[in-house]
């Protein structure tokens, strides 16, 4: 699984998430898919509607979800997934992310440490488990790589992910594997 994100879009997401710190912020990612490769070309910010602790939770209003779906159809794009921040926590899916995880979607999780983006990772459910995607910013003549957020190479990961996922299937909680 391979997902790329246009540098401009990643910077827009970074700006949204950093300005929302210390609260979690969220939005949608849209773009194109060809075979197993996804390219994110658009993001849509949405309000975090959580009425619990917004530093630890996000909820997207169902009507905001519908608007994003319809915008994707209108613009000939695919709704590829969700982005959200983990303020002062690693960019690793939590048990709460797992509980609500949907098949097909890419989940971009961004670690914001003291208001600054530190790490961005993307995950997808595969056989009901979260699997980290190869996630990168394509290099172009117009990209300013020195200003782009650093995306750590996949092989540098050594954290364990939650083992079970996917909406719609019976699953067991495995809290011992959750790091957050």
């Amino acid at each position: 699984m391979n997902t790329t994100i246009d540098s401009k879009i990643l910077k827009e997401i970074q700006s949204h998430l950093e300005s929302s710190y210390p609260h979690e912020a969220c939005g949608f990612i849209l773009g194109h898919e060809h075979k197993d490769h996804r390219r994110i070309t658009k993001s849509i910010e949405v309000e975090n509607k959580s009425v619990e602790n917004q530093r630890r939770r996000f909820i997207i209003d169902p009507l905001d979800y519908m608007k994003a779906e319809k915008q994707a159809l209108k613009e000939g794009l695919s709704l590829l997934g969700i982005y959200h921040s983990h303020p002062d926590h690693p960019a690793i899916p939590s048990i709460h992310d797992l509980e609500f995880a949907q098949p097909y979607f890419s989940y971009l999780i961004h670690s914001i440490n003291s208001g600054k983006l530190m790490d961005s990772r993307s995950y997808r459910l595969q056989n009901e488990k979260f699997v980290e995607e190869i996630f990168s910013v394509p290099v172009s003549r117009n990209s300013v790589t020195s200003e782009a957020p650093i995306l750590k190479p996949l092989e540098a990961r050594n954290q364990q992910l939650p083992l079970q996922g996917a909406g719609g299937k019976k699953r067991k909680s495995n809290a011992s594997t959750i790091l957050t």
Partner: protein
Amino acid sequence: MITIFIPTPLRRFTSDKSSVIVSARSVTEAIRQLISAHPSLTPYIYDESELIRKHVRIYLGEEDIREKQGIDTLLKDGDELSIIPAIAGGSGRLK
């Protein structure tokens, strides 16, 4: 006729269709027709007790059917139902 909007994560079960047309007089009848035509959707809509899953919302137009008569909500020709997965998460324990 009733149009049921299918969210992106579930379109692999509807041959990539973003909407399915059914003929139904209530929400429950519409959902049952949808499932009948696309049985692979079943575990993503119903739980083991055959109730609508906790993390699935069904909207009639822009209204949550839970604020109407739930799955017994009556439909009329031209209505649009939407199946909406609850989108939520978070980094860790509440403090």
